[in-house]
């Protein structure tokens, strides 16, 4: 059931492609801006690389999540979805999967651009970076999914989501930046284990909680 909903969202996205394209271009622009926000004579690109990567991911995810429920809202599609005999947990799961696919695609396009613009060598660190990106993204996209379902029903929806979501991005972001910088420096796995546990725990807690709380958001 969750897969069907996710498939529906992904199909709708692939047909228009505008949102995906805009989010990717947005991420590329953030990377470019970052490059000029740094004094190259003082700060080497590699010192700043982990933070740049993660701030870009976070901002791109925010833009992506903003649209997650806007489409459903526009044509009253969410009401139709809610009338269908779908368990709310599955509905949330589907929305979460679709958002993860969307954010994941943006991240997958951003990463090569990041390597290109910042001249980072990723050959050894790539599997680790992909793993930590997945680990960090799942948690904050789960929270972002439930918040975007709320935000579309408020005034100033585009502003409400970042204000609510950014505090929740802090733990995954800190963990991801720490792990990424250690990966880029070629440190052993044992030095990252604490952070990885924290990220995994965050995912478990918030995916569970958001799944349970979702019906409180959509059901009258």
């Amino acid at each position, binding site marked *: 059931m969750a897969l069907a909903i996710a498939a529906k969202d992904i199909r709708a996205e692939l047909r228009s492609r505008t949102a995906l394209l805009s989010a990717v271009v947005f991420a590329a622009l953030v990377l470019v801006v970052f490059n000029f926000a740094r004094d190259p004579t003082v700060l080497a690109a590699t010192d700043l690389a982990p933070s740049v990567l993660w701030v870009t991911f976070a901002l791109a995810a925010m833009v992506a999540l903003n649209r997650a429920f806007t489409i459903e809202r526009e044509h009253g599609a969410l009401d139709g979805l809610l009338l269908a005999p779908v368990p709310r947990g599955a509905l949330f799961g589907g929305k979460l999967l679709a958002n993860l696919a969307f954010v994941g695609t943006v991240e997958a396009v951003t990463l090569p651009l990041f390597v290109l613009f910042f001249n980072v060598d990723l050959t050894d660190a790539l599997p680790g970076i992909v793993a930590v990106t997945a680990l960090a993204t799942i948690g904050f996209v789960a929270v972002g999914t*439930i918040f975007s379902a709320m935000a579309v029903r408020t005034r100033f929806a585009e502003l409400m989501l970042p204000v*609510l979501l950014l505090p*929740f991005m802090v733990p995954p972001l800190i963990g991801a930046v720490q792990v990424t910088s250690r990966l880029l420096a070629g440190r052993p796995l044992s030095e990252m284990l604490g*952070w990885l546990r*924290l990220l995994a725990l965050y995912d478990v807690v918030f995916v569970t909680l958001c799944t349970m709380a979702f019906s409180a958001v959509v059901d*009258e």
Partner: protein
Amino acid sequence: MTGSEAAARALARRGLGISLAALAGLAAVYVLALGFTPVEARQGMAQKIFYLHVPAAWSALIAFSLVGVTSALYLWLHDPRLDRFAAASAEVGVAFSAVMLTTGPIWAKPIWGTWWTWDARLTLTLFLFFLFIGYLALRASVHDPAERARFSAVVGILGMLLVPFIHLSVYLFRTLHPQPIVLKPSAPSLPPEMLRTLLVSTLVFTLLYVGLVTLRYALALAEEARDEAADAG
């Protein structure tokens, strides 16, 4: 005057009474802290701010914990009183956090030599502050009362669970904040006069919290009564 309006008025009077008593107590705390508590040997007069900063932090913490608890209870019981209480508590908590976040740097500048540092406890309280500003902003931007109550309860619960995560992740950056000196496993390491002043001040701030929340709760009741009257009339 309808029944609910009268109830709101009575509650507001009680809240005002408690708040005024707490403000009088606050004046007494100033006298006690400045006149009858010894000056700390190393920090000098700057340490006096401790008697406001710590109790304010205490009240803010109570406020935010109760928002989390009442939010969880609301999703379970759907009692509008819980929602009203959570809203009142969040607003008062933001006020106390503002006191805590302003008194802290004033003390930190002469003692640490810096207004702000990204220490675990400072970062945590700053994010608590942001979190509840967001909570209040959400409340302000949802029109339907039932929807507002459900949405803010979800944010309240998620926020409560976020706190240990923020704490854990910033803690790994090491911490500069003074270690606990009262609530710790061994006996408090504070001289008895200082401890007395701190306890009195904590009591006063707790009372102030109760008074302000009661007032805010009464105001919410009055607003609801007004809206109902407007709908009926």
